[in-house]
């Protein structure tokens, strides 16, 4: 190979690699830098040095007519590729990308349909090949191994030579035994042929030294002897698709995901810290490094309100160093830091550490793209949707009515719901009942320029509206513990035709429901879900999962309703009563007999319990009565127990009000109940009676006129009093005597005389 070509085998997203690379580039001072990456990004590279470009960022390539088929090349500030790009741009040296074109990659991905991003990022299906070497050498990951390597030699070309030797060995064994699988092997052949072709071209175009920055895995292949004609032949007939490319903002959490790192194993936050170590140069020793990290942890812990003494921070860094020494490593790795933090700062308790883990290890950075950089696939996707749906973006407000039974209507509705999910409020749903079994939706449309900005922000979540909406919903669900909010999200996902995201939200809802102790809240969630199940949303729904969730919620409620109704304030009791009656109806519609049985058991316990809030107990008894779970005698006994002392008049009043709500028939048909009620009213003293009057009035107000009249006639006939106290049948209760009470009864029952 031409001696002007210098190959630098790097570790993707490895801060150690990046530091060594920068040192090596400084030493070599190449005339041109070639970087592993799709050449479609050549024109985009020069934007990287703009002041508005904040890492993490990614180069996005997507199929022009099908944006969902896409490919990302993410860069963090510590990615060697990013540093190489900046190095060249700052010195005015040309940068070229030399991997196979995204056009071919995407065409191939479409063929296999199982394009794995992680696989594309690392050098092997098991992650980075350096991780494999590190594993053999007994290190936690490639970064720890690299550190050890960098520590033992000075950063620079020597490191790259050592790695090349190791990888060449690894590669020979792997290729001979087909360790990577045939598809992967084939793809490497194509990619490396392209790389060799590009390298030859660069050598022809440029007279000076040329630096090639590429995954260590590919270095041996570029050294390999082959002719231009051979390489041309390899790549000649590859299928291609039309590709568009753009810079897009990326985030720390996606960086951790897309790079195939398990959460918390090797994380962007940690790598950034390592990068700082390398950038500060040699004067930053292991001690300062450990102290820096432990101070960061302490700072985060303090922000969470935990007392962390500086003395403990010092101890933690000392322990990290001692641990590294025991494990034979020159500097503490993430594992040592973690163990030391746990023992010295958190008193062995994982909980506080978990509070800060996300911010500490993953980081919360979101990248930004400079305004001068051309945008962007979501806008293109929206345009495509608008064409398909025949909707135009207009400033003027316009109302449209959609019939969801037609394909066009459903399409429009899906689009608008998805846009709402990603915060692009182009349309506002006017008809609140939409989606609950009705097939109509009314939307108010109005486009404003700010929505373009929102669209750009949503890019963090995905490149098509569908992807972005689904990912954003899932992210929101993961961050939320509010049950009602989550139920809303589930519904929103179903309306937006995102079954996958809906499933995620359902799982989050289940988890949130378990940790919630607010039974009334849970009860109000059930009707929403049951109505989705029962009436559908004019879209396919994950029925099985949804009904599993409803049964789980119902089981939870059935177990907790009693304790939720004990010793609560009247206002709370009232809320619970309302939620309970909605839940009861929904449970009936849901139609699981076992759950209904358990519910009745719980109702019976509420009705029997003497500390249950009267309003709730009244409803429970009524439901038991209506379901005929208890016979008349049992209901009547319970009813009169609730009305007689030691129940105070106010309690009894609340009980009666909630028992009577929902129809007069119960009293008309059940004389015993009427008698108990009658007896209680008669026994009230004047003061309590006047106090209770409004409550009673409310209780009766919902009865139909005819019902009220029938009750009145029953009371008037004297039958009630007879039945109530058979022992006093012969006493002075003459019809005349009863008649004296009639005017008052009319007032209570609200019947004009």
């Amino acid at each position: 190979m031409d001696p002007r070509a210098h190959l630098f085998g790097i570790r993707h997203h490895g801060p150690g690699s990046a530091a060594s690379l920068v040192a090596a580039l400084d030493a070599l001072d190449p005339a041109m830098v070639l970087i592993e990456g799709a050449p479609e990004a050549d024109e985009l590279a020069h934007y990287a040095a703009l002041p508005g470009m904040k890492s993490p960022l990614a180069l996005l390539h997507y199929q022009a007519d099908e944006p969902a088929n896409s490919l990302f090349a993410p860069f963090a500030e510590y990615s060697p590729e990013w540093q190489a790009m900046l190095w060249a741009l700052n010195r005015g040296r040309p940068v070229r990308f030399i991997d196979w074109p995204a056009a071919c990659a995407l065409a191939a991905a479409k063929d296999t349909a199982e394009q794995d991003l992680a696989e594309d990022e690392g050098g092997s299906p098991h992650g980075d090949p350096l991780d494999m070497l590190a594993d053999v050498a007994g290190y936690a990951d490639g970064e720890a191994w690299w550190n050890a390597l960098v520590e033992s030699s000075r950063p620079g070309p020597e490191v790259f030579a050592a790695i090349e030797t190791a990888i060449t060995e690894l590669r020979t064994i792997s290729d001979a035994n087909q360790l990577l699988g045939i598809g992967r092997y084939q793809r490497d052949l194509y990619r490396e042929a392209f790389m060799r072709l590009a390298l030859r071209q660069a050598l022809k175009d440029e007279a000076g030294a040329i630096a090639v920055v590429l995954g260590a895995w590919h270095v041996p292949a570029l050294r390999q002897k082959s002719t231009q004609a051979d390489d041309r032949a390899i790549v000649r007939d590859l299928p291609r698709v039309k590709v568009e490319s753009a810079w897009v903002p990326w985030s720390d959490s996606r960086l951790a995901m897309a790079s195939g790192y398990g959460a918390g194993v090797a994380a962007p936050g940690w790598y950034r810290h390592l990068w700082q170590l390398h950038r500060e140069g040699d004067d930053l020793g292991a001690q300062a490094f450990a102290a820096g990290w432990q101070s960061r942890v302490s700072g985060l812990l303090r922000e969470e309100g935990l007392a962390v003494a500086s003395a403990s921070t010092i101890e933690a860094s000392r322990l990290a160093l001692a641990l590294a020494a025991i494990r034979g490593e020159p500097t503490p790795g993430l594992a040592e830091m973690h163990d030391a933090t746990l023992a010295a700062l958190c008193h062995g308790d994982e909980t506080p550490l978990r509070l800060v883990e996300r911010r500490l290890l993953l980081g919360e950075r979101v990248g930004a793209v400079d305004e001068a950089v051309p945008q962007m696939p979501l806008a293109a996707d929206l345009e495509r949707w608008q064409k398909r749906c025949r909707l135009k973006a207009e400033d003027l407000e316009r109302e449209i009515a959609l019939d969801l039974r037609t394909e066009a209507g459903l399409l429009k509705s899906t689009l608008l719901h998805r846009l709402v999910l990603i915060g692009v409020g182009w349309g506002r749903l006017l008809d609140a009942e939409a989606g609950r079994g009705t097939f109509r939706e009314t939307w108010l449309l109005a486009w404003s320029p700010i929505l373009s900005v929102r669209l750009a922000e949503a890019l963090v979540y995905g490149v098509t509206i569908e992807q972005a909406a689904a990912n954003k919903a899932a992210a929101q669900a993961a961050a939320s513990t509010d049950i009602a909010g989550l139920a809303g999200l589930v519904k929103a996902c179903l309306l937006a035709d995102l079954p996958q995201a809906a499933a995620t939200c359902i799982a989050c809802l289940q988890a949130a429901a378990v940790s919630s102790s607010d039974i009334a809240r849970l009860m109000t969630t059930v009707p929403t879900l049951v109505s989705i199940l029962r009436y559908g949303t004019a879209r396919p729904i994950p029925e099985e999962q949804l009904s599993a969730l409803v049964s789980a919620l119902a089981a939870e409620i059935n177990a907790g309703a009693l304790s939720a109704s004990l010793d609560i304030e009247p206002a709370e009791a009232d809320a619970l009563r309302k939620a309970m009656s909605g839940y009861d109806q929904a449970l009936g519609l849901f139609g699981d007999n076992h759950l209904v049985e358990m519910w009745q058991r719980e109702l019976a316990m509420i009705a029997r319990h003497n500390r249950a809030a009267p309003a709730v107990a009244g409803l429970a008894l009524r439901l038991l009565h209506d379901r005929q779970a208890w016979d008349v005698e049992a209901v009547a006994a319970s009813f009169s127990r609730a009305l007689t002392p030691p129940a105070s008049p106010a309690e009894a009043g609340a009980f009666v009000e909630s028992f009577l709500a929902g129809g007069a028939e119960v009293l008309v048909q059940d004389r015993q109940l009427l008698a108990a009620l009658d007896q209680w009213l008669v026994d009230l003293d004047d003061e309590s009676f006047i106090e209770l009057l409004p409550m009673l009035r409310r209780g009766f107000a919902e009865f139909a006129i005819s019902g009220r009249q029938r009750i009145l006639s029953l009371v008037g006939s004297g039958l009630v009093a007879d039945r109530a106290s058979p022992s006093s049948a012969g006493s002075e209760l003459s019809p005349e005597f009863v008649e004296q009470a009639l005017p008052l009864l009319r007032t209570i029952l609200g019947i004009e005389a």
Partner: protein
Amino acid sequence: MTETRLRQSAEETYAAELDALKKGDDRQRPANWAMSPHAVVDYIMGGKAKDGTPISAKYVGNRRLIETAVATLATDRALLLLGLPGTAKSWVSEHLTAAISGTSNRVIQCTSGTDENQIRYGWNYALLLAKGPSHEALVRTPLMRAMQDGTLVRMEELTRMGSDVQDTLITILSEKMMPIPELDDAIHARPGFNVIATANNRDKGVNELSSALKRRFNVVVLPPPASIEEETEIVTRRVAEIGTSLDLPPIAPADKEIARIVMLFRELRDGQTLDGKLKLKSVSGSLSTAEAISVGINAWAEAAHFGSGAIDAPALAANLVGAVVKDPAADSLALEEYLENVVRKRDGWRDLYGAIRDVI
């Protein structure tokens, strides 16, 4: 010589292993340590000595925890081992002292009756009265001896001791010095001195360490067994051992039932089902491996004396409920939910569902 002691200490039982490790140990040793930190970790976790002597594993679990513990002792910070009952805290601390100091006999069992005289020093009152305060009249405690000789001292169940007595340790741990005001003198600890304390983290509310003292310890939490297979094996084995030593009438093997106990305990303890699909309410009890063992033993006794002669669902049910429901309100709720969402729907658990329903 016939053995007259019921139990030998760790350094005697494993003398051969310790010698082999010491012989092959060429790494740097902290002052007054019998072997290097690396060799200590090998001694605890098992492996092979340089000369090929096999080293048995004293602790089965995460190597990283033991490394943290040893590194702590090497940095002259005190070590606190926390864990549920039956997670081998005292066992680990005994072996650590045996390996590092060559003796595990310096131990103070902390109780609510422990006073400062048992921690710092006491007086020989006859001498004190006859001659007045003098070094001869001091009665030395294990802690004081450890300071003078530069060895480790163990303090068992640290949190059982009153908080005011605990705080005696603060000066000793931070300044490595114990003043004797009566003699206007002080004992200065030699290198190698350190404290290993153990405490039960369920009981920490009893006499919670003051934050001043807590800060002077590095804490290592020894967790319950990591996998269900490991735990099931431990429980099965211990139930058989204890049951036999209690002379319980023999019964049919109950491996299947014990597997169910362990599964139920683990799921409730972790707050989620084993497959991770369902989150569960957590319970107030610790549901430790030790408790699973005792449920197994009780069910055995019940089955053998009163029941069908084999451990079955009814024999388990009452014991399980007793072990799970410690706080009547919250725990019954959690159990109820678990019953409905998990037990009822799991294949082959129907009998257990019925049996537990009968009990609650």
